[in-house]
C-alpha cells in the first residue's frame, strides 16, 4: 500500500479548520498558542458564526493572530483589547466578539480595561493566555510570573517582597457580577485540549444568550523564555503553574463554584 492509497475521503479522521490560514505560525515550536488558535477557530466554524465574528488581537506574541485566523479582526493597542471589543459590541450587539490576550496585555497594562469590561458585563469573550512571562519582548517578568521564577528582569527569581505577588486576575474577575462564565484550562494534553475547547464553546454560547462576559484563561507554557524543552516546560507547568493557577471552571451561569 502506498501513501496515495491511504489519502482518501473515508480515511480522513482529522482536518485543519478552514478558519485557520495556511500562513506559517510565528510561534516557537512547543508553544501553546497554536493549539489555542485552532480550538478558537474550530468553535467558530462549528457554530457557523464566521460571518458574524470579530476578533481582537493584542500586543504580545499573538499580535499577528490576524495572520493566522481567517476572520475579520482588529489589532488593539497594548492592553486595550477589552475597550476595543466594547466599542464593537456596543455598536453590534448581535455579533460575536472576542479578545485574545496574553498575561502582560490583560493583567498588567490592561488591568483597568479588563476589570471594567468584566464589571459592565459586556457580552463578549476574553481568551486569556497565561504563560507567566513576556514572550515577545524576550522573557521579562509578567504580572503572573510565579514567586521565585526567573525571568530576564528577575534574573535571581521573583522576589515577592520587592515585586509583589503574581496576580490571579481570573479569580478576581470571577467576583464581579458582570461575568457569567469564567474558566481556567490548559492545552498541553489531549484531555485538556478537549476541555479547553468545551470551555471556549460555552463562552461563545454565553454571548449568543447575551448573558454577560465570558472569560477563558488558558494556562500555557513558554519553553523558549522558560529556557526549557517543550516537554520539560509542560512538566514544569504542571508542577508549578497548576498549583498556583488551578485548572477548572470557576464560575458557571453567573455562580461561583470555586474560589481557589
Amino acid at each position, binding site marked *: 500500500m502506498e501513501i496515495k492509497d491511504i489519502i482518501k475521503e473515508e480515511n480522513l479522521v482529522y482536518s485543519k479548520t478552514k478558519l485557520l490560514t495556511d500562513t506559517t505560525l510565528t510561534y516557537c515550536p512547543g508553544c501553546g498558542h497554536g493549539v489555542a488558535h485552532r480550538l478558537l477557530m474550530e468553535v467558530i466554524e462549528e457554530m457557523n458564526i464566521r460571518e458574524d465574528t470579530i476578533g481582537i488581537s493584542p500586543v504580545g506574541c499573538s499580535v499577528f493572530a490576524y495572520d493566522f485566523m481567517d476572520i475579520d479582526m482588529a489589532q488593539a493597542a497594548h492592553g*486595550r483589547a477589552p475597550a476595543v471589543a466594547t466599542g*464593537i459590541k456596543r455598536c453590534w450587539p448581535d455579533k460575536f466578539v472576542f479578545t485574545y490576550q496574553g498575561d502582560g496585555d490583560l493583567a498588567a497594562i490592561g488591568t483597568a480595561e479588563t476589570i471594567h469590561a468584566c464589571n459592565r458585563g459586556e457580552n463578549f469573550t476574553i481568551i486569556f493566555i497565561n504563560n507567566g512571562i513576556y514572550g515577545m519582548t524576550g522573557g521579562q517578568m509578567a504580572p503572573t510570573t510565579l514567586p521565585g521564577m526567573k525571568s530576564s528582569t528577575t534574573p535571581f527569581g521573583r522576589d515577592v517582597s520587592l515585586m509583589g505577588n503574581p496576580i490571579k486576575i481570573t479569580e478576581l474577575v470571577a467576583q464581579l457580577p458582570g461575568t457569567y462564565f469564567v474558566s481556567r484550562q490548559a492545552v498541553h494534553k489531549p484531555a485538556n485540549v478537549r476541555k479547553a475547547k468545551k470551555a471556549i464553546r460555552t463562552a461563545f454560547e454565553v454571548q449568543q444568550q447575551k448573558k454577560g462576559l465570558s472569560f477563558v484563561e488558558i494556562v500555557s507554557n513558554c519553553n523558549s523564555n522558560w529556557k526549557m524543552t517543550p516537554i520539560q516546560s509542560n512538566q514544569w507547568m504542571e508542577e508549578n503553574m497548576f498549583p498556583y493557577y488551578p485548572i477548572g471552571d470557576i464560575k458557571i451561569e453567573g455562580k461561583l463554584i470555586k474560589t481557589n
Partner: protein
Amino acid sequence: MGELRLMKGNEAIAEAAIRAGCDAYFGYPITPQSEIIEYLAAEETHKRTGMVLLQAESEIAAINMVYGAASTGKKVMTSSSSPGISLKQEGISYIAGAELPCLIVNVVRGGPGLGTIQPSQADYFQATKGGGHGDYRLIVLAPASVQEMSDFVKLAFDLAFKYRNPAMILSDGMIGQMMEKVELFDPVPRNTEFDQSWVITGKTADRERNIITSLHLESASMEKHNQELQKKYIQMQEQEVRIEKIQCEDAEFLFVAYGSSARICQKAVDLARAEGIKTGLLRPQTLFPFPTKEIEKMAGQVKGILTVELSMGQMVEDVRLAVNGKIKVEFYGRAGGMIPTPEEVLKAMKQKIIGG
C-alpha cells in the same frame, strides 16, 4: 431656516452629534466639556436615534472604544479636554495609523499638567503636529462660535469619512461654556449601509477577511504606508483649507487668530478702523490643513501681521513659515485662562507691528 436655539457650545456639539447621525459616543468626564456627555445622557440617545452612549472608565478606554466602533464603519466620537486628550494620544495615533474615521472634540483648558479649567489655546501644537507618536495628521477644525460648534460636527464627520482619517474639533473652554443663538441643521439619518471593502463586521463568503491594524513590521511596508498617509495629507492641504476673512480688502495690517482669539481680534479690527487704522482679520477655520497659501497671499498686501493666541505662541510659527520672512510677524498672547481685551490686542498691534 433650521431650528433656532439658545445653547452652550458644548450642548451644541452634543445636539449636532445626534443630528449628524452619530452612532456612538464614548467619553470620560472632564471640565470644561462634561456638558457634552451630560446632554447626550439627558437626551436618552438610545431612544431618540439608537445612538450608543457609554461613560468609559478612562479617556484611554474611551478612545480605544472609538477605535473599535470606528473599525466597523460606524460614525463615532469622543470628547475631552486637554489632560484627557493627552491620555488619548496613543489611541489617536493608532486610529490615524489604521486609517479610521472618527471625531475627537478637545475643549481646551490651560496647561501644562493639570493646569487650569479656564480656556486656553495651548494645545495647538498637539492637535496640528501629530500629538501622539509617528508621522500623522488630524483634520483640525477651529470653531469661533456656538454656531460653528454645531456646524463643524457635521463637517468633521464628512471629512473624516472622506479621508478615512480622525478629525478633531479644537475648541476652548470659552466657546464650550458660552451661550449663543444657534441654528441647528436638520437631522441626518444614521448610516445603515457600510463600505464593506474595509470594515470588520464579520467575514462573509464574498470577500477576503478585513484587518484593522497599524502594524507594519517590515520597513518597506511601513515606509509605503507613511507615503500613502502623506498623499492623503497633501490632498487635504490642496482641497480642505477653510478660512474667514474679515475686512481684509483694504487692510494694511492683519490679525491672524482662530477660535476665541479671533472674536477678540474682530472687535479690535473695528476699534482700529474707528481710529482710521486699516486692519483686517484672517481667521483659519481649519488648523490642519493650515491656510499657508492664503496667509502668503496676504503677506503681499499688508505691512505686518500680529498673531493672537490664548497661549505663549504656537500658531505664530506656522504663520511665520507661510510669510517666509516677507513681512514682519509678531505674536501677542495670554495664557492660563487670562483673556486679552480688544483694546489690549490693538495696543499690541500698534506697539509690535505699526510702530515697530
